């Protein structure tokens, strides 16, 4: 997906929303640096959203995480103007919808935006199918055509059999599937999701998250997703924004949020995060393209080990695919015996992981104590992981000092100086794995 992200779909520029009878006065005070509390105390105006700016790319899923009262629900309603922002711009496909007139606004809502609500917001007096086709009905689509579309999307979410039931016959998870189908039926380019899974049981919530990830793989919507659950944010977001008192305190990839929290507030949240699920192999690896097996011998490998205390290095074939692991001990023995050809020293039973794999998924491989080969999607060797780095990552205190992302690159000295790849790849490839 990362390749489609360069087209900006939603561009939110310095949006501020102030609730109260005299927002302009509060806005002036806000601009001169008054805090939210001061403005509330002095003017009685409530700052809902304070100068928020972000972009969401086509096919990107952008998650806003914040506690209740942080303004996140207000923010998402500013995007489709269920709430009119006090100032700022909201551009969808480069059109500022804040200056659109009523007709144009409705057209944008009809054609480009779908919304999913926290408490499902299904119409109790309509059947599941009638709920699903609501957007098309408003658009004026003929009855049989919109029913067909509704059934199609109900089928996608697995509820086609329930088309003619009423919402009160459905469980919470099923209701939200209908909510999702209703939003998808209008074929929106942007999906606004306001805490869609917060009202669900934990197990169903996890299923729904997985299902959303699957749907997103198929349909590549731009998603703006609101949640108060950081784990959910990290799981679903290509990028995550942490919102506090109406402001964004940090925007970043899940790994940036967990690896280098911008302030103590964010850090406090990340304490409980399961790092093993967030941090990927690509982040903790030391970039290393391996030593081409055809162009090396025991002696040259031995010189590599001179400046390097790892237990072994990887050798690759002509295409850059990992051939095997050469252990330092074996090299020493071979030198003593006067051997020249490295081929006999190459161990083929080495651990290998994809760079997008979360640490938790290859934790077991670390216990062998040997370096782990990291490959990209074309199976080329792009780095190695020292098992000790994995253990360090999984201890919260250690990680914040080590700075995931750039930290790995800084430590990637020593090992075969000439062969070390530029550190650029360390974070680049990893969001591809997510929604």
């Amino acid at each position: 997906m990362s390749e489609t992200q360069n087209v900006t779909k939603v561009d939110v520029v310095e949006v501020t929303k102030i609730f109260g009878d005299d927002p302009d006065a509060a806005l002036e005070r806000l601009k001169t640096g008054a805090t939210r509390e001061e403005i509330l105390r002095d003017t009685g105006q409530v700052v809902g959203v304070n100068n928020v700016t972000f972009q969401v790319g086509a096919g990107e899923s952008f998650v806003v995480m914040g506690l209740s009262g942080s303004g996140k629900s207000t923010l998402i309603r500013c995007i489709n103007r269920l709430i009119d922002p006090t100032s700022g711009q909201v551009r969808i496909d480069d059109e500022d919808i804040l200056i659109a007139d009523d007709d144009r606004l409705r057209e944008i809502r009809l054609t480009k935006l779908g919304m999913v609500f926290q408490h499902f917001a299904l119409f109790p007096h309509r059947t599941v199918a009638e709920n699903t086709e609501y957007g098309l009905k408003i658009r004026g689509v003929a009855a049989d055509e919109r029913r067909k579309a509704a059934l199609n999307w109900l089928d996608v979410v697995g509820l086609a059999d329930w088309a003619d039931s009423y919402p009160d016959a459905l469980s919470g998870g099923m209701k939200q599937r209908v909510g999702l189908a209703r939003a998808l039926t209008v074929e929106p380019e942007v999906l606004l999701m306001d805490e869609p899974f917060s009202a669900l049981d934990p197990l169903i919530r996890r299923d729904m998250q997985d299902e959303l990830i699957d749907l997103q793989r198929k349909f590549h919507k731009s998603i703006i997703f609101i949640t108060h659950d950081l784990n959910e944010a990290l799981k679903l977001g290509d990028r995550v924004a942490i919102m506090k008192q109406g402001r964004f305190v940090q925007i970043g990839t899940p790994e940036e949020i967990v690896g280098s929290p911008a302030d103590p507030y964010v850090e406090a949240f990340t304490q409980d995060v399961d790092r093993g699920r967030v941090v990927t192999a690509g982040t903790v690896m030391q970039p290393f393209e391996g030593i081409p097996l055809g162009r090396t011998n025991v002696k040259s490998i031995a010189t590599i080990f001179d400046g390097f205390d790892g237990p072994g290095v990887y050798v690759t074939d002509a295409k850059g695919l990992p051939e095997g692991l050469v252990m330092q001990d074996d090299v020493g023995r071979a030198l003593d015996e006067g051997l020249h050809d490295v081929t006999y020293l190459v161990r083929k039973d080495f651990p290998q992981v994809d760079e997008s794999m979360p640490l938790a998924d290859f934790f077991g491989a670390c216990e062998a104590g040997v370096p782990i080969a990291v490959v990209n999607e074309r199976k080329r060797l792009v780095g190695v992981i020292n098992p000790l780095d994995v253990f360090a990552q999984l201890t919260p205190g250690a990680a914040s000092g080590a700075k995931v992302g750039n930290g790995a690159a800084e430590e990637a000295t020593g090992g075969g100086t000439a062969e070390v790849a530029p550190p650029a790849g360390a974070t680049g490839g990893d969001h591809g794995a997510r929604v």
Partner: protein
Amino acid sequence: MTDFLPKPSDFFVLPLDEWIDYLVKGILVPNLRPFFRAIQWPVDQVLTGLENLFNAIPFVVFVVILVWLAWRFAGRSIAVFTLVSLVVLDIVGVWPESMATLAMVLTAVLFCAVVGIPVGLMAGRSDTFATAVRPILDIMQTTPAFVYLVPVVMLFGVGIVPGVIATIIFAMPPIIRLTNLGIRQVPEELVEAGYAFGSTPRQVLIEVQIPLALRTIMAGLNQTLMLSLSMVVIAALIGAEGLGLIVYQGIGRLDVGLASVGGLGVVLLAITLDRITQGIGEASGADAGRRKLSGVAQKVKTLFGGKRPSDGDTATAGGTQASPPSPGEAA
């Protein structure tokens, strides 16, 4: 003692009664008489139409229709009660008066609905309008019913139509209040959902707000009906007919029997109409009737080992495991 302490009225007396007297007699009556006459016209038309209709329908046919309505919407026991009530009304000899009263009441309710529901809808959608309407409704509801009668007689004259107009004024507030309440009770998220999918305010009103407020609006209609019934007796003071007139005559002649028969007629009519309209109100609430049916269909499906509402997990009790598409398959 108290004579030593001055009161405001020692210095100044506000001639409020004279002012109002002047307002009505001096300004409203001479200038707006044609206007008030014009208001009377539609009320008169509807009332006469209904009266003629009820008089034309044979007793048996009327009873069958009403009992069927009661059966359909309120159940068997109310249907039986309706049958007994109507028969009693006839055998105590107040059937024609009951029909006259029914015509008056339904006319009043019709006009209350025609005026009150739109006003209630507007109040439900605008805080400013609701704030403006509220004191007027308070005045309409708390002013003693007899107080209406004097200005009504002056502006509209004496007779059955002015009686109905007094009834309309008296019975209007509940339908306005409950329509307002019903609209406001529609969950905000549902209204937002309406707008989020591109509906116009009108579409939100028709597609979302009114259907969901319908049950409350019907409760308002029921209250309006009850208030109308209680007003028709009082309206007899200014020449309205029907059961009210019987009661009024009973009081005038100190004829306990006559007054009681009139009173009984009002009570029976009131209970019958109340139960039937409540039944209709509940049935109309967001298509409860259809939902009941779909619920039954659901049970039948379940009975024959079909699908039941669950997420393929523990969401509902006692499900066979061969239930609907689990999340995994669904994806």
